[in-house]
């Protein structure tokens, strides 16, 4: 699909056809996309874990649910979990990633990159992130379990950015494959136990994946605050002027689509409730 159209058709789908599995090739295509996502400071933070719903026991499924997790978990046949391994930043302190990029001609002397720069400037920069004194436990203590190891907030900042990049790549790749997807919170402690997640991996919300159980429109593109609330030019709070002609161009390219709610949306949702035996 055209890129802009993928962006436009992506929205959080909350009804999946539970009986239709996702072809393994399509799952791999999504992983291949994530694999090509930019690395934050050339650190390999991201870890992705694919789980098929039907391989989980009812007890495990139940454990993954929180009071705000809803029927989506039962509907989506595949879950893609995202983590960042924060220990990778420490591993990168030897500068090997930078040296390799210099060797490959990605980073060059024209921009100051050479062996000395790696040793004297680039890796100390990473070291300062790792050693930053503002530290928190990787995991708050919970019933019967001690808190996780301590890590600097600066490390978390980079790791979470890396996860977010991977998540958006994954969502877009899913819709490009004609699939439906949504990020959704689950019990992180249950997921850690069920999936055998190492201590140094920090979680984010998994992506639920399947085929649309609702219309692709899903009631229309979801609302946002005005553009000018988020984007500024040169000095805050001077807003970045939103040119209507650009909005028109993006509308023609299907990136900006008719906004929610469609007049027929509530009837659709009631129909979906009946389709899946859910309450109104």
């Amino acid at each position, binding site marked *: 699909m055209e890129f802009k159209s993928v962006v436009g058709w992506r929205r959080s789908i909350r009804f999946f056809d539970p009986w239709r599995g996702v072809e393994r090739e399509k799952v791999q295509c999504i992983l291949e996309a994530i694999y090509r996502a930019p690395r934050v400071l050339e650190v390999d933070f991201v870890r992705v874990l694919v789980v098929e719903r039907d391989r989980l026991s009812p007890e495990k499924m139940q454990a993954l649910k929180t*009071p705000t997790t809803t029927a989506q978990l*039962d509907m989506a046949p595949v879950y893609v979990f995202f983590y960042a391994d924060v220990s990778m930043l420490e591993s990168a302190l030897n500068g090997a990633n930078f040296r390799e990029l210099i060797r490959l001609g990605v980073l060059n002397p024209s921009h100051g990159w050479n062996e000395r720069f790696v040793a004297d400037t680039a890796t100390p920069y990473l070291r300062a992130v790792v050693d930053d004194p503002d530290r928190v436990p990787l995991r708050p203590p919970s019933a019967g379990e001690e808190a996780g190891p301590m890590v600097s907030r600066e490390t978390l900042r980079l790791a979470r950015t890396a996860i977010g990049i991977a998540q958006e790549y994954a969502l877009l790749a899913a819709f490009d494959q004609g699939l439906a997807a949504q990020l959704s919170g689950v019990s992180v402690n249950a997921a850690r136990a069920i999936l055998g997640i190492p201590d140094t991996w920090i979680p984010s919300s998994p992506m639920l994946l399947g085929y649309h159980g609702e219309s692709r429109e899903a009631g229309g593109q979801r609302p946002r605050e005005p553009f000018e609330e988020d984007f500024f030019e040169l000095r805050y709070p001077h807003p970045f002027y939103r040119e209507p002609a650009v909005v028109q161009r993006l509308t023609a390219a299907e990136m900006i689509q008719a906004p929610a709610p469609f007049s027929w949306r509530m009837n659709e949702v*009631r129909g979906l409730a009946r389709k899946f035996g859910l*309450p*109104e």
Partner: protein
Amino acid sequence: MGIGIEEVRNSESTRRWFSSLLDLWGPSAVRPGLVETLARFCTVVEKTPDEIIDECLRATTGGDTFVLRTRARKQFMDQIDQFENQTASRDEANVVRSFFIHNGIAMNPSILV
């Protein structure tokens, strides 16, 4: 103990349910038979609608927000599942779930495949 239809109809939580149904779906959602179904469930659990909701949501000290009591909610969710088995009707059970949801207590019903 039987719970009377009128008592169910006139309780605050039922009124809240109806007004939320009306607000979200329109008049057709407030269909005949809802009160009767809820009354049957109330009879099974031997509680009035307001007692059920009060058990699931504890008011915070300020009184304007609530805390979900997960254990009570779980108990009622199980009782609704039993009610579904007894009545052999997902529709009837979903009427009860709808009553909980519109009163602010999320339900996690399984899907019908």
